[in-house]
């Protein structure tokens, strides 16, 4: 069933208008009132999304609104059309809902920032781009807004652009994403040359006609884009650095919404991936490795935001693993629950930073529980949800992914995911204990930490409720509300029979593993019976591997960035200065010297000019008289 309506456009339009208004008039006129526009606009967008989702999820009715034809070149038509199916409806709720809470939080967090209006111009612009990304009805529109969210990410990571590290991080995020986007663009082009259209429905119907090699190539190229955007191995290096942006940005873009674009895209294009078992297998392996590698790195970090950032990478790895084993619904389910607890964790660490005057190092925190009970309890809920402790949100969705991986023919990957779950619990509670328990490792008389103001506290509480309860949307496993809601989208996907004993077994295993991580964190950082330094020394090279982020940055710096730098310098010195500038300057010099020669004709003597005129006339008239009959016929 499908219905054409004319009000869908307000969902992206409201944030866009707010962004434009703040961008144009923010500096001189709106200034500190920027949130008056942005927050209601995004809230309105959220309400409209709820209305749309109500229709779509409640009646399983597709909503669409054609806007206009963007490109019309003979056979090639690119209409801009907003389409909401069940998958888009869920994404819309996540994007606009979390965005709204982050907007509210930002009122308190960004207060007194000189770039306040700028912040509230880029943030709604991001919401607009992300909403358009999920509403797109073809790959080209998807790609355009895929790039637009990349741009917003760049603008917001580099929000404090006067800080060199922020500018560098923004550049890094943009360049690394660009590598993935290059593959994504190639995939779309290949798709177009083979199929002749980019409309989702038409493409998916045409997939069975393509050879398996072509489909695999297309799927892998598309997934390259997801690797960049969703921070998978080996392109995840930009995400931890993206923490240079303001914390609400980290919460919104680098945890809850933008990074899930890659997961969403793969889920959206699932008919392509389903047609290629090899591509699916690669997606699963990369996902599982990402979740494990990032979890180990997170365990060794001392910067609270970097811990949460690596945790994001790790959770995105889980989602990719789910996609790879064809567990589309668990992937989206995890995306949904993750948005809540990850936004909560980031906003909570933002509250801690706020209280500690921008201190990020957990070694200089401790004992904050006394002064910040609200932040503490919401963060504990977020951490437990992230660690997959029953019955919080993360438990249900992560467990379902592991079960799907097990029955989907990849028990080894499921075990890798289980190992990652152990580290997840370890690093999450390590962060909580280091920050909130024990004795303060700072001077409490100087800092006076305190719970955040209402605009920041309310989003924390709402997100904590979400992190605690959204998991029940997927209960019972395989037959919860979210499964029924998403079923029509993934009809074609294969279903694996899951036995109750397996589900229970894995649930118990993952709970045990999570509690093991929790217990080790407790022993090391609260009771002090286990010395973290001794463990690190004992593990030696393994610890150094994780602490240095598995040397990804190091390898990129030495084997990619530096050679490219050298090559660029060479091109600049020899080709640019020598050949290109030389050619331009040389031709200018030739013109100048020729002009010097001709310049001698200009004596400045009027008599000379008059003589020339007279002589010229004589010559012309003489020529007319002599050759008149033949020349000037």
């Amino acid at each position: 069933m499908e219905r054409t309506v004319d009000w869908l456009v307000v969902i992206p339009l409201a944030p866009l208008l707010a962004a434009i208004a703040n961008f144009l008039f923010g500096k001189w006129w709106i200034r500190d009132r920027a949130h008056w526009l942005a927050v209601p606009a995004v809230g309105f967008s959220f309400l409209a999304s709820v209305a749309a989702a109500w229709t779509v999820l409640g009646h399983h009715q597709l909503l669409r609104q054609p806007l206009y034809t963007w490109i019309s070149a003979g056979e090639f038509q690119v209409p801009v059309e907003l389409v909401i199916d069940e998958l888009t409806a869920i994404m819309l709720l996540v994007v606009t809902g979390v965005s709204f809470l982050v907007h509210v939080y930002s009122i308190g967090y960004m207060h007194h920032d000189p770039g306040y209006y700028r912040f509230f111009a880029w943030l709604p612009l991001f919401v607009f781009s992300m909403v358009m990304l999920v509403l797109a009805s073809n790959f080209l529109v998807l790609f355009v807004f895929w790039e637009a969210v990349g741009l917003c990410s760049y603008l917001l990571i580099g929000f404090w652009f006067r800080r060199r590290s922020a500018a560098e991080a923004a550049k890094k995020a943009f360049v690394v994403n660009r590598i993935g986007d290059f593959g994504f663009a190639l995939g779309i082009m290949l798709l177009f040359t083979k199929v002749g259209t980019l409309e989702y429905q038409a493409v998916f119907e045409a997939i069975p006609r393509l050879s398996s090699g072509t489909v695999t190539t297309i799927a892998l190229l598309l997934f390259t884009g997801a690797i960049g955007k969703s921070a998978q191995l080996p392109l995840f290096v930009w995400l931890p650095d993206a923490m240079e942006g303001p914390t609400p940005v980290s919460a919104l873009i680098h945890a809850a919404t933008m990074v899930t674009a890659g997961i969403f895209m793969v889920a959206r294009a699932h008919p392509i991936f389903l047609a290629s078992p090899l591509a699916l297998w690669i997606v699963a392996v990369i996902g599982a490795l990402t979740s494990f590698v990032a979890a180990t790195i997170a365990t060794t970090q001392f910067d609270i935001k970097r811990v949460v950032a690596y945790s994001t990478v790790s959770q995105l790895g889980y989602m990719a693993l789910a996609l790879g084993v064809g567990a589309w619904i668990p992937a989206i389910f995890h995306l949904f629950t993750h948005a809540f607890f990850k936004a909560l964790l980031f906003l909570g660490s933002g509250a801690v930073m706020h209280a500690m005057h921008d201190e990020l190092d957990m070694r200089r925190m401790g004992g904050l529980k006394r002064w910040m009970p609200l932040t503490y309890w919401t963060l504990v809920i977020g951490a437990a949800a992230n660690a997959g402790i029953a019955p919080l949100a993360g438990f249900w969705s992560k467990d379902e992914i592991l079960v799907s991986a097990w029955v989907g023919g990849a028990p080894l990957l499921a075990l890798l995911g289980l190992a990652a779950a152990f580290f997840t619990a370890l690093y999450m509670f390590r962060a909580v204990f280091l920050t909130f328990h024990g004795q303060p490792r700072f001077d409490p008389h100087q800092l006076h930490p305190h719970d955040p103001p209402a605009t920041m506290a309310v989003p924390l509480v709402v997100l904590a409720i979400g992190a605690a309860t959204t998991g029940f949307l997927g209960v019972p496993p395989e037959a919860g509300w979210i499964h029924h809601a998403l079923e029509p989208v993934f009809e074609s996907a294969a279903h694996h029979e899951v036995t109750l004993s397996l589900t229970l077994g894995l649930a118990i295993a993952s709970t045990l593993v999570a509690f093991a991580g929790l217990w080790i964190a407790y022993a090391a950082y609260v009771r002090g019976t286990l010395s973290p330094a001794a463990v690190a020394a004992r593990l030696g090279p393994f610890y150094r591997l994780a602490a240095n982020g598995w040397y990804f940055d190091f390898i990129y710096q030495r084997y990619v960035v530096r050679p490219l730098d050298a090559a660029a310098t060479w091109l600049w010195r020899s080709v640019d200065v020598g050949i290109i500038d030389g050619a331009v300057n040389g031709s200018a010099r030739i013109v100048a010297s020729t002009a010097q020669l001709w310049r001698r004709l200009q004596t400045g003597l009027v008599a000379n000019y008059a003589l020339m005129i007279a002589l010229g006339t004589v010559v012309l008239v003489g020529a007319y008289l002599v050759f008149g009959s033949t020349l000037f016929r």
Partner: protein
Amino acid sequence: MSELSATHFLLLSAALFIIGMVGVLTRRNVLVIFMCIELMLNAVNVSLIGFAWELHQLTGQVFALFVIAIAAAEAVVGLGIVMALTRRADTVDIDELRQLRE
């Protein structure tokens, strides 16, 4: 000497024109050059009138009237320029007025 014909007019006109042109080419004083240009214009007038007389048509006379009108306008502009020149550069010698060369 035979009867008056167009040749006489043209001879007079050519003589006047050449006198004017030589004046323009050889003299240094802007005012004199200016007067020589007027002379050349009037030489043309003579030939125009001569043709009108020869062909029994008024066109040439009308043309001459136009040339006189334009010459008057030109005199206004030209004399204005000469005035401005003398005020600015304090000279009417065109050999000293070579600023445009640079």
